């Protein structure tokens, strides 16, 4: 029972990490948005698995919320924003693709090293996925820093939120509901405000 549970969570977490690497690999913003959408779906799946196996009932609600909010509403907003900013498409990132991928590999190893003490402490079956969650956090940090397109930065920030949510899910079967709802509210508000600010900014500075 626990074996399949940890196997499923592992596959979900690694899928999310791979999707983050996809952002590093591709250059076009629409690709980023689809990568984010699929990552959110994977997160919802992991949520559901934890809810099912860890028999934590309210996690089903959380998984549904993730699916609705991050899987559908936010990507739609991002797509609409992207349509209005054709100029960003061709922008090259600060760090070329090979370097980015190598670096993200390094970050994954660093994440593993950092999370080692945490993993030893946790007795839950899902502790295997913790290094992956931390790796996702560090990689999405790198995405925000290195991407030049504004929307790519937003996607990076959202992936960072997904990484932390994953950490919470794997670490302790999710934070208390009221905090989870608060986080969703903030993410939604954040995206709305970013969406309001972005058109006024014009071309991102070359710096």
């Amino acid at each position, binding site marked *: 029972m626990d074996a399949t549970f940890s196997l499923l969570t592992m596959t979900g977490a690694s899928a999310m990490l791979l999707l983050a690497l996809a952002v590093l690999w591709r250059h076009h913003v629409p690709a980023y948005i689809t990568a984010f959408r699929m990552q959110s779906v994977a997160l919802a799946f992991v949520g559901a698995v934890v809810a099912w196996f860890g028999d934590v009932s309210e996690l089903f609600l959380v998984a549904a919320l993730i699916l609705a909010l991050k899987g559908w509403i936010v990507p739609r907003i991002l797509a609409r924003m992207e349509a209005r900013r054709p100029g960003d498409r061709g922008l090259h990132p600060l760090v070329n693709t090979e370097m980015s991928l190598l670096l993200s590999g390094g970050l994954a190893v660093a994440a593993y090293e950092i999370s080692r003490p945490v993993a030893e402490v*946790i007795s839950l079956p899902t502790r295997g996925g913790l290094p992956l969650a931390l790796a996702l956090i560090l990689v999405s940090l790198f995405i925000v820093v290195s991407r030049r397109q504004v929307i790519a930065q937003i996607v990076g*920030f959202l992936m960072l939120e997904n990484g932390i949510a994953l950490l919470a899910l794997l*670490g*302790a079967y999710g934070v208390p509901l009221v905090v989870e709802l608060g986080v969703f509210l903030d993410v939604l508000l954040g995206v709305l405000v970013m969406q309001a600010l972005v058109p006024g900014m014009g071309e991102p500075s070359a710096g």
Partner: protein
Amino acid sequence: MDSILLIALLAPPMFAAAVAILARRAPVGAVWFDAAAMPVSAGAAAAIALRLAAGGAPLVIGTAWRLDALSALLALLVSVVATLAAWLGPGLERRGGVPGTEIRHFRIYANLFASTMLMAVSTSNLGVMWVAIEATTVTSALLIPLRRTKPALDASWKYLLICSVGIALAFAGTVLAFVDYATTGGDLELALNWTTLRTAAPSLHPEVAQLAFVFLLVGFGTKAGLAPTHTWLPDAHSEAPAQLSAVMSGVLLAVALYAVARWKAIIDLAIGPAFTDTMLLVVGMATVVVGSVSLLSQTYYKRMLAYSSIEHMGLACVGLALGPLGVFAALLHLTGHALAKSTAFLLSGRVYARYRSGKIGAVSGLLDTAPATGVLFAATLFALAGLPPFSLFLSEILIVQAAWRTAHGVVTALVLVLILLAFASLVTHLQRMLFGKAGRDEAGRDVLRGERASVPLGILALPVVLLAWIGVMLPAPLRMLLTYAAEVVRP
């Protein structure tokens, strides 16, 4: 009784925001309501503070809200400074000239901003505290580009993105701490409550607690403007309207430092103060260095005030790391800084209204054209430079004494040199603005001369007098409140 006080504290800004949203056609009505509502919350905060200063037990309402001495102090600061900003916000001046929509926008977001800060300091659940602090970023990010200028939008975008990413790291820290707590088998539902975490702290695992604190320090440090994550602060505070930068510089940074102090209280119980003190000392000193060193070459006075905030936050952060006396000094420093910096920014708004330019070089002969504003501005800058009779003089001496008492010789010497550097820069810029002939403003028109005694000036004189009163007398209730708050952080 407690819940009434809590409602009186939190409700007014929310009502004011709601009224502002509804009063589409009568923005001035919303302004007057806001001006009337905010003092209620300030009064409530004062009542709570007085009760706790007299040694009363912390206000506990349900499991979500808990106000002890530390949060009462911060709530008092937030509500007083927010009231100041409300009274001196756009829409109240006689000559008008500010478009209706701008007034409404300001009132909506400023009040939301104030209520999120009040929630952050009064909740007992550290997760909700994180949510409230993230909400402060979002609400204030919309206020910075009130005038839709390109640099303002750019500054706001940087502020939003950097702070959001920073705060996300803080959330990662919170989750790590939660995970650490979960492993001890405690009740998950109340997991993130400050009190439960404190009682469970000794059983937390050291490495995980240290890892969590690093994430928390970097995360909330970004919001508190601690180096090296301070880069958003000068742009955001100099582009934002004066009233907003007053509240942001005065109390938002303090609320972020409050969050760090909350977590420090827990982590110290888990692994002893040595680790967190070293971390805070390193980050604090870096911040003081960045703040005071870059003060000298500033050419815009609002950026100068922003860098001065960075320096004072660094000093407060260093204070937190210097044992019980240091924490008391840090909290006194935050109180003094909140009053002095918010008044300085509000006055810089008046200077901008008269000289139409943010450059220090463009403003000359301020004592000549606007004596009252000039004198008050000089007083606040002297307070920020750490001169008596203002309270920052006391707290700086206490920080130096605490540093020496905890055998940090190098820190003492460095702090003294940096305070001197900051003093020299502030006086240089202040003199350039106060003296000399009253030149022309940016558009070449002669600067308006003379100034009648008006209500805003009276309001602005209040915090200066309060600062001097605290600096000299340090009234007993405030002193007891500070002592109890210091005990919360460092028992």
